[in-house]
């Protein structure tokens, strides 16, 4: 009798264990996703193929840049976030291709293609010992400026490859709801 009860108990425990494993199983996309390399705005983050250090973050209502000899003005219903960063290849020539702005609510914004023709945007080819600078432009909601995370990787989809995740820190909001220090117009010049 006791043996039967024990067998039943083992059987039930096995079922519970299997159910628990099934429900807590990580998704395949998480298992094969990018490998994060964390850092803050003040330090250099080392990934497998490149190093990145964020230089500054500027918020603007309007962007101005030259495109095919004509001046272009880009407005937005949100706010432009312009991130300038220093890049360096670690050991081999490498590409840096994708950047994402992740807000405090988890909203993710890919680098804007509206400003992709301005100088310094991604993708960018890096060579070892040759310093490079990039300027990534995001079109975001003002509420997503505070405690945001910048995600930068070598490829658009980087399974099982490292991805820089840089905490951009606190940003206070002005009375009009815009991030503090938002400039009226930011010019995406040839040099930066």
């Amino acid at each position, binding site marked *: 009798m006791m043996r039967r009860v024990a067998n039943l108990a083992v059987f039930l425990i096995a079922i519970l264990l299997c159910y628990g494993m099934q429900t807590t199983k990580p998704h395949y996309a998480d298992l094969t996703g990018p490998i994060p390399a964390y850092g803050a705005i003040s330090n250099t983050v080392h990934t497998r193929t490149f190093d990145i250090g964020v230089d500054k973050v500027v918020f603007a209502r309007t962007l101005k840049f030259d495109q095919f000899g004509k001046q272009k003005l880009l407005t937005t219903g949100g706010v432009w976030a312009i991130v300038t960063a220093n890049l360096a290849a670690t*050991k*081999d020539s490498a590409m840096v291709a994708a950047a994402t702005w992740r807000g405090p609510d988890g909203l993710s914004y890919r680098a804007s293609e509206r400003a992709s023709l301005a100088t310094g945007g991604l993708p960018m080819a890096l*060579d*070892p*010992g*040759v310093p490079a600078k990039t300027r990534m432009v995001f079109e975001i909601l003002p509420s997503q400026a505070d405690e945001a995370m910048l995600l930068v990787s070598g490829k658009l989809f980087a399974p099982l490859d490292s991805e820089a995740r840089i905490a951009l820190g606190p940003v206070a909001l002005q009375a009009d709801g815009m991030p503090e220090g938002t400039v009226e117009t930011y010019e995406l010049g040839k040099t930066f």
Partner: protein
Amino acid sequence: MSIATQGTRNERTVTEQRWWLRSLLALIVLIPAALAVMSYDSVKTLLGNQDFFAQDVAWKSKARFGGSEWQLTDLRAALGRSDIPPDLVPILVDFTVTVGEPDLQKLWLGCRIMLIDAADRHWLPTGAVSFRQADDAKTCVSAMFSGAKSGDTLKVRETFLVPKDATATIRPAVSVGSERPSFLLFQRPQD
């Protein structure tokens, strides 16, 4: 009756033990074999993308690689460009290639010409600087699509941007899909 049953049980046990051992031995062989079969394609792809084994080529020597004869003809710095920071040096690398097997699009697939320094840093051709090219100079990729026939001679030139500290030790290297994981590592010009 009781003795007969005991005997059968013992016989079964011995047989079972034998099969248990056989199964164990089979698992020892089969598990690594299954892993090898399952990972064969992945390992093949990995090796097909990597440059692991360097074949040294002496200065002025030719080496047969990817069905053609490769010879390094020049490695020089292009100084005097005002648009390039003083601590960076554009490097021009010239090869003369005598085409053997003409199916270059297959044999040279994923063609990579690189510079490798003493610290094992690798540089790929740059798009940041460009120079006026002689009409007959081709890049590795444009040479693949040039329609060259067996016996033709191609001039292959690539441009690199390297820091000044690397110029003393850089060596040109060539890697093509049909030869990976081996690659050619050329000795620097001696004169």
